[in-house]
């Protein structure tokens, strides 16, 4: 069997290896470059620098500010300055080190707090993006502590700081660029937006787009956020210069993947004695690193999800993402919501103890309901939340999940500290914490995202079969399963007879740029294509009964009219409409711009909510925390492939526990990714199917109005990542008490940051 290959598994005859000369300085001007030493090494075929860039030397997702190869100044440690092609990876590496760069070190800017005032480190300035969301009657006044006191309100303040976290997909960043004569250059890379990459690469290489072919390979790590496109350009550059295939594999410690940005969040919650929220003020600062990448999206997301699934009459949110001399950051799983959720949930608990009602009670009294305003970038005055918002159901599901045994043990590996042998039965406290999370489906930053698909239906000896051509890349999240099932539901063709084929050349349609919610965007496009194919396929029957073909649907093995009057077994329908040799083609497209159709409500914010309960054992003296169990329940709208959806949610929860406890870009003690040794048991308590049954209706114009794509499915990838850190923190506070006020809570909460140890 030949399964698709990861880019690092691809090889070509006469292949060379890329080595990269990286900046040792966080900030330094390049006074000179001497490539002769490297070129002199036998087996080295090309040594190139910015001077050799045939085209435009810059790329970037949101703003084109990042050089492919640093020309005059390097802005972070590890920034590429020169690239080398050699016979052997080690040779390439050594050659890259042999490149002499004359550095003129400058004073680096590492502290995001100083960025806006410090002299600009980039022509575009140090503030990458600033945003402000304000609505309500009198936010300013209420947020003033004195006024609040007078009004008999409690003001709860808190500061929360996240370290930057490396994005470390399982499969390392790798590219192989193959020069192919007239056709131009072929680039094999693990990307989910080949067309976008293609245009950038062509521009940087100074080639016409049709001479560049970006061919997506297998993607590992179940995350669609990958290395920046600069790597493709560098490899292609060398391939063109040497006329030989060039393979680039980025070492794991090189900053090739934009990681989760460092963040500082300041919160002020004003709560009345009855526990109702009166106002919330949030100030969010993100460290975008040296270049913009996608951090702007993270900020937008963080701001819109800054108050969580709560009803707040007065909201004042300000956010900034600034440029520093740290490695570029960007969106990874969980996005901005993962940062804010931990903060606002901690605030809710603090508010709970401030008014003496407890965090849960305060939450329940302020739960977001359909119609309540939520912050929205498109509408500064906020947007009403669209139904449903089934938070109570989620809460019940996680709270009814059976608790794990206590005390743990007798195996010491079940105690905090495990084989470190610090575990002591009477020093273990168990804490239980619950957090509510909210994901926002109408993210303007994603509105550029789209996908197209083609569905071909034909008759085979085994019966009708379908082939789906789309650029949906299977990253391990079950995307292809979802596509097969979608076709099965729409056309009644068994999933095993549905083939998903990635187009050879994404330059020709179909293509996509779906990064944040690939399953959603691709699935919707495929469904649209399948619907069109269905309409064409059964048009004869439709005309026969005098309805539009689009009004026919497939259900329990039958072809039905929208009003269920007409009913015909599928087998017969296919026999009549699909003679052997006939191939019916359906084309489909989905753009996030068409978001309203997802919920049927045009001017409301469509949200997904969920709850996580964390059970954590804490060593009360050593600051070690062991997440025993995570129970997750969320609104999934519609579950298309249940086991894949649950697996997705579970892995998100694990990622969340790593995010809050162990991960960090600067770990001084090895890696922080949760391993089976310290990753919790995850119980997916419920994926609520809240979407109304998908039903085609006839619009006023007599034409069919399509039901929400995928029957109203909502993305499930991010919510667990967002809410789990908050739940784990709540559980720890439950076990050992709140951190002292004043000092910011620094995350990830590694043992040496345990407030209950340091007092």
């Amino acid at each position, binding site marked *: 069997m030949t*399964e698709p*290959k*990861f880019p*690092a*598994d691809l*090889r070509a005859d006469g292949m060379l290896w890329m080595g990269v000369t990286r900046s040792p300085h966080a900030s330094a001007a390049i006074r000179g470059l001497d490539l002769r030493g490297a070129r*002199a*090494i*036998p*087996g080295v075929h090309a040594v190139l620098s910015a001077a050799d860039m045939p085209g435009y030397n810059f790329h970037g997702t949101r703003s084109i500010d990042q050089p492919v190869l640093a020309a005059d100044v390097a802005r972070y440690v590890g920034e590429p300055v020169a690239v080398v092609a050699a016979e*052997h*990876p*080690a*040779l390439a590496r*050594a050659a890259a080190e042999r490149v002499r760069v004359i550095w003129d070190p400058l004073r680096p800017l590492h502290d995001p707090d100083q960025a806006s005032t410090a002299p600009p480190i980039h022509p575009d300035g140090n503030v990458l993006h600033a945003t402000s969301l304000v609505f309500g009657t009198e936010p300013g006044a209420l947020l003033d502590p004195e006024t609040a006191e007078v009004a008999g309100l409690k003001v709860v303040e808190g500061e929360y700081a996240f370290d930057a976290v490396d994005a*470390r*997909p*399982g*499969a*390392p960043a790798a590219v192989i660029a193959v020069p192919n004569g007239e056709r131009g250059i072929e680039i094999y890379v693990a990307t989910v937006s080949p067309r976008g990459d293609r245009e950038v690469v062509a521009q940087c290489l100074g080639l016409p787009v049709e001479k560049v072919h970006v061919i997506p390979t*297998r*993607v*590992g*790590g*179940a*995350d669609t956020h990958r290395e920046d496109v600069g790597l493709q350009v560098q490899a292609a550059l060398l391939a063109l210069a040497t006329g030989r295939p060039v393979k680039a*594999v980025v*070492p*794991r410690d090189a900053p090739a993947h934009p990681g989760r940005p460092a963040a500082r969040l300041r919160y002020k919650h004003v709560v009345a004695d009855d526990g109702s929220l009166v106002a919330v003020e949030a100030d969010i600062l993100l460290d975008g690193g040296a270049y913009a990448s996608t951090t702007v999206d993270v900020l937008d997301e963080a701001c819109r999800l800054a108050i969580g699934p709560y009803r707040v009459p007065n909201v004042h949110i300000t956010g900034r993402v600034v440029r520093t001399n740290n490695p570029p950051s960007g969106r990874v799983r969980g996005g901005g919501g993962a940062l804010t959720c931990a903060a606002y949930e901690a605030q809710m608990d603090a508010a709970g103890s401030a008014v003496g009602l407890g965090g849960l009670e305060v939450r329940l009294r302020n739960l977001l309901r359909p119609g309540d305003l939520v912050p929205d970038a498109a509408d500064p005055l906020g947007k009403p939340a669209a139904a449903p918002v089934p938070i109570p159901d989620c809460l019940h599901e996680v709270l009814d999940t059976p608790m794990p045994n206590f005390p743990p*043990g*007798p*195996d*010491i*590996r*079940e105690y905090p500290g*495990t*084989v470190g042998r610090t575990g002591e*039965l009477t020093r273990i406290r168990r804490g239980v914490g619950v957090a509510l999370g909210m994901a926002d489906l109408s993210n303007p930053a994603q509105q550029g995202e789209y996908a197209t698909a083609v569905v071909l239906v034909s008759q085979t000896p085994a019966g009708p079969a379908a082939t789906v051509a789309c650029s949906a890349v*299977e*990253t*391990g*999240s*079950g995307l292809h399963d979802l596509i097969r099932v979608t076709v099965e539901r729409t056309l009644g063709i068994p999933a095993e007879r549905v083939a998903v084929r990635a187009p050879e050349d994404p330059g020709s349609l179909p293509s996509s740029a779906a990064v944040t919610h690939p399953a959603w965007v691709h699935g919707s496009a495929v469904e649209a294509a399948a619907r069109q194919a269905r309409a064409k396929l059964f048009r004869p029957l439709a005309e026969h009964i005098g309805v539009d073909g689009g009004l026919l649907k497939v259900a329990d093995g039958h072809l039905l009219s929208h009003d269920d009057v007409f009913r015909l077994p599928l087998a017969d329908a296919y026999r009549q409409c699909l003679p052997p040799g006939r191939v019916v083609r359906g084309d489909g497209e989905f753009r996030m711009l068409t978001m309203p159709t997802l919920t049927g409500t045009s001017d409301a914010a469509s949200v997904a909510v969920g709850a996580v309960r964390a059970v954590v054992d804490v060593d009360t003296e050593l600051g070690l925390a062991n997440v025993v169990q995570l129970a997750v329940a969320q609104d999934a709208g519609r579950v298309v492939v249940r*086991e*894949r959806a649950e*697996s997705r949610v*579970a*892995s998100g*929860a*694990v*990622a969340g526990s790593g995010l809050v406890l162990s991960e960090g870009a600067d770990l001084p003690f090895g*890696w922080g*990714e949760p*391993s*089976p*040794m310290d*990753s*919790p*048991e*995850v119980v997916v308590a419920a994926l609520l199917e809240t979407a109304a049954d998908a039903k085609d209706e006839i619009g006023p114009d007599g034409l069919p109005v399509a039901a929400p794509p995928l029957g109203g499915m909502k993305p499930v990838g991010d919510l667990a990542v967002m809410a789990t850190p908050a739940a784990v923190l709540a559980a720890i506070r439950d076990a050992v008490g709140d951190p002292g006020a004043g000092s910011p809570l620094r995350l990830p909460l590694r043992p040496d940051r345990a407030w209950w140890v340091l007092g």
Partner: protein
Amino acid sequence: MSEPAAEWPTVGLTLRVDGHEYPVPQVWIGDSLLAVLRERLDFDEPRDGCGAGECGACLVTVDDTPAAACLVPAVAAVERDVRTPRDPGFDAARAAVAAAGAGPCGFCAPGLAVAITSLLRRNPDPGPAAVREALSGVICRCSESGHWIEAVALAKEAEGGAAAGSGASPDPDDADLVDPARRPEAAAP
């Protein structure tokens, strides 16, 4: 460094991989077994994950011992029995991993299969804690340990083992991990 020529001494060697002998000329003395397996012998598995032994994607067995191929010098693998995840000996575990939905993206799955097989060879009936420890060297970003424990159970059934996770026959070397204060009671009449 002195003149480049002497900096890259190579040797030729013969590796015995999955039972077959592969002569490989001109291997740099600094090459890892992983590099030779992948780039010279075209094995896609083991995978090249971190190159530091942290992620376990490159697990193979050398003389029946699980080893991260990125940590084994190729020259030290000569005359030893190297088994990659493609070896039939790992088929049962691979099937179990796939069936349990562990390692959905497939990157860590081969290493996981090797780790599971080695675990079961050493301890035919590991308890959950033993499983977690044994698999702690394989990092997966798109699954969670529940699937892994299930995979071990399936693999054990495939090899006719006892009920999953019962830990009925604890590994003697795990004795020092079991809370000892229970034992007096065990001894009590």
